[in-house]
């Protein structure tokens, strides 16, 4: 066995220089001259958790509007101009953030910064009813394509509603409700922009073929003239206790096979207890060496797929799930009790040394793989600056993760992953004409 680390002392050495402009914009630069490309990455500290009642899906709709032009950029021109410069561009919305990113040939860095600055400064100037209506339709098509027209596509909608109390920031999905989107107006969009899209609520990271002083000067040149604004306040996050009473929900749909999902509440990301639970879930359900896969898919052949994972969230409480999909009509109660018994065994025994070692080296490879790409490296720096205070944590993350002990994993699993603290979502296979 070879559990040795790939890097000396587990500490990585990516260079990081950070400065904050007078208007509050945090700027991180990390030079890497391997290829003549720069990754430009912006994290706005706004996600679906910031949506108020009746405005679910708004953070994501807004992400679409950010590509519909600003005072000096025509609708669609941001993406069009960047692609025509040889850049790849996209944006995503999640519970805890909205990120915008482009990876550009070095000669296109100025244009990328100018485009990002223009929409940060002036988006409402281009916000029209026509753009809003059009992108609302596009988002509805996105929801149909990614969730409504796909077997098990609504699993998160049900699982989140089971795991978090009504009205909780994480109780609804990022895509949100189409009825809420229908209620959106250009006024609500402008209000949303003024609250969250401002320099003090953003981290801008550049990774790639740049010199730090030159990079800071360019950022100052394009973003320095954007006025500071009052940063939005957010209610302090409350850590929810584990679930009680095993809440259940059953949906009947024309899925290819029945399936069982168990969910739990976990501590917020950025805590040792969360990392410990993450390791426990990896050992239970991460890949084909995991306990659930070995038993349900490999040995007993009850299941065509089984796994478990943690979804780290910053607002007080994270989310975990384990699942198993039936194979050739395995009864769902049998599937559920098999999953539960594996969880119970883990709580009783904790991880073996081999399992813990494997979890560590696999984490290390995954972390190094993410850092191998300048785009995802920039995204991690923005992430750790936004959610955890410092991008330096990216360099020490492997060491931190590998310092979690077997006892911590066992104790955290007992505290958070007890079968009594689960919720259960079941997909029953619909026979013809029977739909929930």
């Amino acid at each position: 066995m070879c559990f040795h680390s790939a890097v000396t002392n587990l500490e990585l050495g990516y260079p990081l220089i950070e400065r904050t402009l007078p208007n509050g914009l945090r700027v991180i630069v990390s030079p890497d001259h391997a290829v003549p490309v720069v990754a430009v990455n912006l994290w706005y500290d706004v996600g679906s958790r910031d949506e108020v009642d009746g405005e679910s899906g708004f953070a994501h709709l807004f992400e679409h509007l950010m590509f519909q032009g600003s005072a000096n950029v025509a609708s669609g021109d941001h993406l069009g101009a960047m692609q025509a410069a040889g850049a790849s561009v996209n944006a995503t919305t999640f519970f805890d953030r909205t990120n915008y990113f482009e990876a550009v040939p070095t000669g296109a860095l100025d244009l990328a910064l100018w485009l990002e600055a223009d929409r940060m400064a002036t988006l409402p100037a281009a916000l029209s009813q026509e753009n809003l209506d059009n992108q609302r339709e596009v988002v509805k098509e996105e929801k149909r394509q990614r969730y409504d027209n796909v077997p098990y596509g609504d699993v998160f909608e049900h699982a989140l509603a089971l795991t978090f109390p009504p009205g909780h920031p994480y109780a609804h999905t990022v895509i949100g409700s189409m009825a809420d989107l229908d209620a959106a107006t250009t006024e609500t969009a402008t209000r949303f922009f003024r609250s969250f899209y401002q320099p003090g609520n953003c981290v801008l990271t550049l990774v790639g073929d740049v010199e730090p002083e030159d990079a800071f000067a360019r950022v100052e040149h394009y973003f320095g003239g954007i006025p500071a604004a009052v940063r939005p306040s957010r209610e302090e996050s409350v850590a929810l206790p584990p679930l009680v009473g095993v809440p259940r929900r059953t949906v009947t749909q024309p899925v290819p096979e029945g399936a069982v999902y168990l969910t739990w509440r976990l501590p917020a990301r950025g805590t040792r207890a969360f990392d410990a639970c993450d390791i426990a879930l990896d050992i239970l359900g991460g890949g084909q060496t995991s306990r659930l896969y070995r038993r349900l898919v490999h040995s007993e052949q009850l299941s065509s797929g089984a796994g478990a994972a943690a979804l780290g969230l910053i607002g007080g409480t994270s989310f975990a799930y384990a699942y198993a999909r039936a194979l050739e009509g395995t009864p769902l109660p049998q599937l559920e009790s098999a999953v539960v018994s594996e969880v119970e065994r883990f709580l009783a025994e904790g991880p073996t040394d081999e399992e813990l070692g494997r979890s560590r080296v696999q984490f290390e490879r995954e972390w190094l793989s993410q850092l191998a790409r300048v785009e995802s490296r920039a995204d991690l720096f923005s992430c750790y600056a936004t959610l955890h205070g410092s991008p330096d944590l990216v360099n020490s993350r492997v060491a931190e993760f590998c310092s979690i002990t077997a006892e911590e994993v066992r104790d955290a699993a007992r505290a958070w992953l007890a079968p009594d603290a689960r919720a259960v979502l079941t997909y029953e296979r619909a026979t013809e004409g029977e739909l929930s």
Partner: protein
Amino acid sequence: MTADTLSLRPRPELGAPGPWSFPDADVFTLDTGLTVRAYHLPGQHVISVGLALDLPLTAEPADKEGVAALTAACLDQGTRTHPGTSFADAVENCGAVLEATVTYAGTQAYLDVPATHLGTALTLLVEAVREPELSDADVDRERSLALADLEQRLANGSSRADREARIALIDPACRASRRKGGEQETLTTITGEDVRRFHQTGYGPTRATLVVAGDLPADVRQLVTAAFGTWTNPAQRLVAGESVRGRERVAVLVHRPGAVQADVRIGRFTIDRTDPRWADYQLAVHVLGGAFLSRLNVVLREEKGYTYGVHLTNAPLRAGGYTVLSGSFRNEVVADAVALAGPLLAVAAKPLTADELDRTRRYLMGVQPLQYATASGVCHGVLTLLSAGLEHTFVDDLRRRWTAVTPESATEAAAELLPADDLTVVVVGDADALEPDLRAAGFDVQVVGR
């Protein structure tokens, strides 16, 4: 600068991109016939290793289609040295991840591993291809997983549409008209003996290539030779691939009851990378449906709001290929979207412009340094080219050829290869909801599965 009032800068001009070319390889051949291509990429601490076997799916017996994919799926289920689950444990214990997949042109095993464990990982990779157990129990289990996976895919509108498009575009006599993983009828009949025979006659170092990319240790040649130097297979038989052919235009509506959206594919059998028109055609296809502001996406997404996105892509095989438009549309607008697509693709009526081509060329040339900046990007890129019978010099050659494309040459290639009045249409969705509109729009669809 304090910024109490807004002050913005004028829009900057685009600077020139930095010079770039595909990374060089250290190429050597082992006595066994295995070719090794080693790409040294400083700073890439996760090494990617790919083994490409020259084993096209034409090697499968006709009544056992799927045996190649099933063999690949069983490779990590145990070896003579590491029986049963101890093999997967050994792979994961050294921080590696290993998978094997098939393309129509061959089987590929792929491994990612932190640089410090490269030697161990290479010995595990050679075990998997040289001495897998391939027990009856493993084959039975992986076959039922493959059948369950097939059922899941058919239940997914987009996967279903991809499959139906291949059937509609490719001559049914060609292996490439059917799923790489096999269909239900043949998969169900495959036994452990079939898999072991396929492995015995198909897996070997002759005409195989090992790609190693990343921040390579100084002794990489020794590590590779130590692991692979004794891998031989006197029983290996080489099989020719197929030259894929297209078929006559059809219009098909595949019934998927209750679907809230239809998955649309519109395409034609076209060319592969070795065709002299490839550079012209590739740029044309990107102008029509590759870019965000492509002719198709601007109208169907940005103007009409009919779709989350519509794309026109080339699917080149080793010999022959096809071009296909893909998009999902809500039921009410499907017929209109399909009717708009033909005229939007008609370059004869609206030739490609120099500006469109410049933008596309800059995009395709600009994203390549990024695509090939990582060990994984280089390894996968080289594997893709190998399965097309090409080497990495193709990348730099193509960049030169792109610069020579003119609006006239690109327009001519698209007009010839993608005539708007000779396109196959495949719609997967609720036929009850879609058929009347499609017929009213002039599409004489043949309804399947109702």
